[in-house]
């Protein structure tokens, strides 16, 4: 034995005396310049639909008159409302500009304009429906209903077969639709009765100072064995033909997007439809590939069209019915028409597969009224800024938004305190930042004059960030003791730094003991539990949606714990942007039910709540807007991205960009934040981020404070100095001076010039360097 050890020892000693040197072989390479140059074809980035394009100076010349057959039914100081009772077409004359808006087309259409009878009917009908047709001859397997939805219009069109005859023959379906008009204040009530299929409803069309108001009371809907699926309201209001009218359509996708009218010619264009507030997970199964980013959705119930920039425009604001509405966006070329039209469809019933197999549709109709306000914009308001201001005024009127006074312009600093990793004996807590370290970071930042902070604590709860949601209101001992947390909260209070605690009442993991897998996890209308898989199965491989009622009960349980620990501010994820139908104990619940439960939850909590990506209906409940989208989805049909959401909220709510940690183009991001008035956000940890590699937070690949510190101070100084002067101010106009140069004017007449280009820009003698910005003038 001893000999063996000795032999081994001498062997090792021998080997230690041998050394190896490895020399790298040098290869010579031509020098390469590592600065982005514009591509050989295509535009610079700032000319793509990531940004807003300059306006062309084309003026739209129009000469419009109200044709024969129309009678004036209402008027006020700004508009006149006309109605053709035989055609069921409304026209609004804008007295300021003389422009005339029409609820449907009332001219004869040709095959050059529309190739499919269905869309000719859509264009001519102010109202149309889709329904599920009952057929008693069908067997029980399909429930007696025809699988595909059927359409019913006010018009019936035939497309001519002959080559020379281009005119589409249309007639009113007088025999199939009975219309009854009743005069009401400022307008008319129309009762539409599709007598063949025995479906009918009332429409109140009224005129007010803002524009046209359309209201379909839910209780007026009459059905038979045929069931109503969709109502289309004035789909062609604001439509244009190819590029005959300069202007654009507006879509509230992400931050906001435009489709400028251009002649698409022979290019292949698809129509597309987007659901307001995202798909309904209670009905649709979504396969999200792990390599794609989550698609943005329409977070505000608005849409619009501009006919001549700074001339005329319309914005449709869905005041009721948006939970079950989808927006149809059609550029010319799509669906075989030459028209550009954007319109919502209001879903009364959705079809789905019961148990993922049997085709069926919702038994009960959606209970919401359909209320749309079409506000017309004139002259300098007839653009996307005007639309945003109109929507803003609407929200202020409804007390959703209130003007900020004495507002701060803080930086959002999220601290990831602890996360769960899998250990040999099951999940264990990995401390990323202790309370002491958090305090240290905040003090360090304040000593560098980054004193206007908003702190969000993540993973403060027992068990760490992932797998424990909805969180128990107990502090994770490894992060800090109860008294340390208490001191932390009190210290920050003295420093006037609000600290928010992160929580999520919508998402539940099976690993938490706060929920029961049997009773608390929501089932979709398909009767299947709503579970979602995480792509890399790091620690927890799936999570669930909770019943809104279960969420509410959890929140009620937490109240005393929040009080006890002095937690005043909460950052609540998911609740602001999750909305779904669900099934519970024999009852189908609608999207509106989940929203009302969530609103009740927020009322119950009764403390300051900030939400992540809140949809418009939650703005009222959210103190701050976290993770505001900075772009639109940039679909190939979009021509521009615009800061619509930002303009709506500027001066009314603080809104924060997504974490700057993960931005690949920090210069561009900084300029966008200045341009859009967004506040910066960072997430930091004490320990290096590679500790998160095998956790569910693996997407936080760079968080260490020492790495981020410089960037935080840098961004804060640039943005804060600038935004300090603009706090409480609203954004009044936004102009693209030339490609890549933006001029933003605020309510205190401060002007900011942002130069996205790679060359100097001269603005009235002020030189703005490339990729830089300057604030000029003001009070």
């Amino acid at each position: 034995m001893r000999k063996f050890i000795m032999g081994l020892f001498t062997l090792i000693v021998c080997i230690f005396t041998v050394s190896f040197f490895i020399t790298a072989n040098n290869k010579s390479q031509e020098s390469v310049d590592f600065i982005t140059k514009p591509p050989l074809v295509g535009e610079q980035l700032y000319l793509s639909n990531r940004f807003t394009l300059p306006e062309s100076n084309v003026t739209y010349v129009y000469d419009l008159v109200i044709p024969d057959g129309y009678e004036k039914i209402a008027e006020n100081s700004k508009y006149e409302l006309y109605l053709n009772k035989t055609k069921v077409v409304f026209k609004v004359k804008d007295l300021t500009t003389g422009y005339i808006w029409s609820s449907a087309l009332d001219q004869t259409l040709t095959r050059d304009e529309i190739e499919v009878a269905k869309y000719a009917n859509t264009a001519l009908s102010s109202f149309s429906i889709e329904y599920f047709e009952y057929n008693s001859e069908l067997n029980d397997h399909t429930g007696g209903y025809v699988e595909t939805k059927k359409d019913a219009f006010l018009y019936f069109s035939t497309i001519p077969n002959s080559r020379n005859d281009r005119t589409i023959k249309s007639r009113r379906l007088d025999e199939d639709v009975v219309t009854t008009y009743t005069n009401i204040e400022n307008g008319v009530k129309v009762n539409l009765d599709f007598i063949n299929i025995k479906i009918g409803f009332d429409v109140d069309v009224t005129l007010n100072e803002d524009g046209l108001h359309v209201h379909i009371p839910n209780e007026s809907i009459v059905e038979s064995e045929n069931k109503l699926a969709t109502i289309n309201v004035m789909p062609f209001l604001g439509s244009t033909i190819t590029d005959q009218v300069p202007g654009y359509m507006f879509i509230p996708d992400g931050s906001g997007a435009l489709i400028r009218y251009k002649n698409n010619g022979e290019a292949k264009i698809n129509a597309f439809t987007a659901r307001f507030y995202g798909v309904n997970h209670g009905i649709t199964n979504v396969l999200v590939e792990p390599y794609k980013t989550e698609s943005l959705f329409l977070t505000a119930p608005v849409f619009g069209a501009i006919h001549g920039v700074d001339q005329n425009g319309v914005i449709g604001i869905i005041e009721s019915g948006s939970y079950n509405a989808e927006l149809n966006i059609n550029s010319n070329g799509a669906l075989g028409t030459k028209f550009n039209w954007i319109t919502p469809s209001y879903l009364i019933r959705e079809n789905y597969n019961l148990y993922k197999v049997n085709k069926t549709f919702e038994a009960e109709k959606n209970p919401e009224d359909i209320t749309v306000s079409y506000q017309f914009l004139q002259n300098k308001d007839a653009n996307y800024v005007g639309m945003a201001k109109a929507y803003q005024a609407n929200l202020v009127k409804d007390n959703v938004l209130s003007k900020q006074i004495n507002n701060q312009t803080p930086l959002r600093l999220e601290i990831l305190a602890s996360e769960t990793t899998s250990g040999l004996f099951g999940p264990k807590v990995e401390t990323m930042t202790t309370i002491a370290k958090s305090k240290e970071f905040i003090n360090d930042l304040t000593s560098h004059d980054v004193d206007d902070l908003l702190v969000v604590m993540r993973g403060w709860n027992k068990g760490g960030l992932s797998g424990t949601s909805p969180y128990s209101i107990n502090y994770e001992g490894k992060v800090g003791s109860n008294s340390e947390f208490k001191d932390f909260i009190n210290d920050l209070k003295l420093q006037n730094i609000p600290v928010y605690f992160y929580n999520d009442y919508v998402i539940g993991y099976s690993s938490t003991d706060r929920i029961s897998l049997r009773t608390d996890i929501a089932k979709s209308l398909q009767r299947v539990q709503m579970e979602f898989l995480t792509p890399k199965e790091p620690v927890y491989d799936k999570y669930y949606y909770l019943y809104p009622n279960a969420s509410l009960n959890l929140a009620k349980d937490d109240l005393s714990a929040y009080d006890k620990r002095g937690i005043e501010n909460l950052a609540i994820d998911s609740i602001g942007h999750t909305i779904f139908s669900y099934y519970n104990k024999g009852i189908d619940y609608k999207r509106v039910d989940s929203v009302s439960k969530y609103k009740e939850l927020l009322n119950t909590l009764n403390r300051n709540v900030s939400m992540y990506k809140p949809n418009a209906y939650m703005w009222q409940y959210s103190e701050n807007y976290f993770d505001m989208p900075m772009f639109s989805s940039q679909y190939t049909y979009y021509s521009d991205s615009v800061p619509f959401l930002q303009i709506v909220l500027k001066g009314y709510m603080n809104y924060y960009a997504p974490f700057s940690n993960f931005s690949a183009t920090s210069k561009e991001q900084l300029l966008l934040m200045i341009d859009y008035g967004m506040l910066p956000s960072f997430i930091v940890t004490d320990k290096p981020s590679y500790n998160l590699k095998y956790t569910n937070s693996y997407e936080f690949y760079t968080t260490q404070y020492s790495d981020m510190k410089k960037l935080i101070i840098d961004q804060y100084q640039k943005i804060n100095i600038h935004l300090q002067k603009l706090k409480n101010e609203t954004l009044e106009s936004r102009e693209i001076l030339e490609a890549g140069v933006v001029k933003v004017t605020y309510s205190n007449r401060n002007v900011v010039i942002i130069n996205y280009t790679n060359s100097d820009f001269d603005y009235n003698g002020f030189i703005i360097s490339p990729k830089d910005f300057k604030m000029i003038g003001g009070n």
Partner: protein
Amino acid sequence: MKKNFILLFLTLITFLITLTTINVKAENGVPYKTFTEDSSHWLIQTQDAYIPVAVIDVLKDEKLKNPEDIFILEEKIYIADTGNKRILVVEDNLNLVTSLGSGILNQPTGVFVTKENEETFIFVADYGNKLVYKFDASGNMIQEFGRPQNSPLFGESESFQPNKITVDARGNIYIVDLANLNGIIQLSKQGEFLGYFGQSLVKPSLRTILQFIFYSDEQKQKVYKEPSTNIANLALDHEGLINTVANDINGNIIQRLNISGNNLLPDGTNTGTVFLTRDYNQLVNLVDIFVGPIGNIYVIDNIGFISEYDMEGNLLFVFGGKDDTGMVKGLLNTPTGIASDDSFNLYAIDKVDSKIHVYAPTEFANLVHEAINYYQDGKYIESKEPWEKVLQMNSMFDLAHIGLGNAYYKLEMYDDAIKHFEIANNKLGYSQSYWELRNIWFNNNLLYILLLFLIWILDRICIKGYYFKLIISYIIKPFTYLTKFKLFKEIKYITYLMKNPADVFYGIKRQKKVSIFTATLLYFVLYIEHLFSKIYTGFVFNFTEVERLSLLSEASQILVPLLIFVIANYLVGSINEGEGRLKDVYISTIYSLMPLIIFWPFVTILSQFLTVNETFIFTSTTNILWAWSFINLFVMIKEVHNYSVKETLKIIIITIFTMLMIVAACFIFYILFNQVIDFIFEVLTEVRSNA
């Protein structure tokens, strides 16, 4: 039956799941996520490297129709506009678009441009005409190359339908013909056939091996008649070497071929999109390859993923993906080509959508490129600054850790170097830095070591090792107290194995020297030692990811096989006149593994102090321990069952077979059980849906 069983097994491995993501934590206004790879080929999300800028379908007034290839040279873009039977040349940001080859070309699927004496020549592979054309810059056709004539080497029946083409500096023409499986067709400047080039196989997968073993000859013929390895495309790099992408049913491979057709890139340079697509049961085929300005390699596949590799074949970025709506900028439907310009802008063409997607590099990508460029030149110290910036943006970027490790190594800051190598899990770099550190330690402590050694020698020679024995006796002393316990005695009994194994097993069998409890304890000790070695084996030899260790699967690696062995051996023995009882086999088996139980922890500890250069010490000692244990097992079977040597050998073979059968039986039971569960579940669902 057996074949079905294997197929069932294969289908079980590739089950399908649906996925969705939690909230996106970053937003760059890009439809895809960008990933890079760590040392264990685990994809790590990273900052976006490329941002989609534009989607173009009309170039000036020329509308694309089903384009199949793209090439860029000196700021000019050449597109094989296959559907329109022409080559489009795009210059000066669309201000000048010319076409060439109209009227001559029939189905141009490949285009390549080369410079000869300052003159530009355009080579076109025409699939329809079965010809390769050479055009000059003004579009005059000056030469055409057809099927090699009078060349017995080429083969009578081989096809000649050029798909893709490349020309090297000597004027040799390399043609990819997807139907010709002999390799790349190499023609001389004059069009003479020089030979097939670079036919090399993708490594066989488990599946093909299984197929080979279990398929009947008929089935084999069916499988292997289909194309084995298919070189899909090729590109010329800055050193004049041919880079290719190839696919077969086992996967994809990227190769850099030297003049004799051997691959210079490491094996396994094909992992990029495996993770991203594994859930879709989709076959990934690499479609095109392009060599970028710093020798970086761009590869695009049929799904739409674009991967960028550095010159040495390390994956830098993979991004993109599929979109069949045609409305998402940056996601592709049917990609056919990729190219980059001198400032890393990328151009990907989509055949069915007839579009070019243009991507611009981000600040982050530029930083990585700058660092890589220094690094490739061996300027490690210059690369330090950009690598540090890269790490500041993404601290999980392993290549940056390796780069920094190398920079620190060059600067002789081995402590820092070793830290970065460890994070990046780079065994070689770690080992080299550790070697240096260990060397420094030895230099500092050499005197003490020599002194100790001297004392030991003196002690041994002069007083016959008195002091050494004294020290040893002090160490042993506390253990003498333990000898009172039966358990300790039983455990100590294991050491007799070194002297006479046969006696030990006799003692276990006849004299009942060891209780089942002690044996069970030793099984547990072995399991703990196994875990210990998994976790604490020196970094250089340790391939375990501790974070992903599971107690159960580790037990199944060591304890389960042992227990199956015990059962199988007992059963086999009992029907073959073996004398051993289950208890004897159980106890003796663990006692046979004495060498592992005693020495394994020491080897594990020793491995902490070894570098790559001393690998053989680690592997040979481990092997010796295992070999010793197996010899003991052999003796054990012989003694316990009282067999002759010949019988023992026979029994061992039958035991192994029995073990396999036990595993198979369990597996089949598991599958059947699952089927029953599924069946019940389906019935219940059906009942509920009709209730």
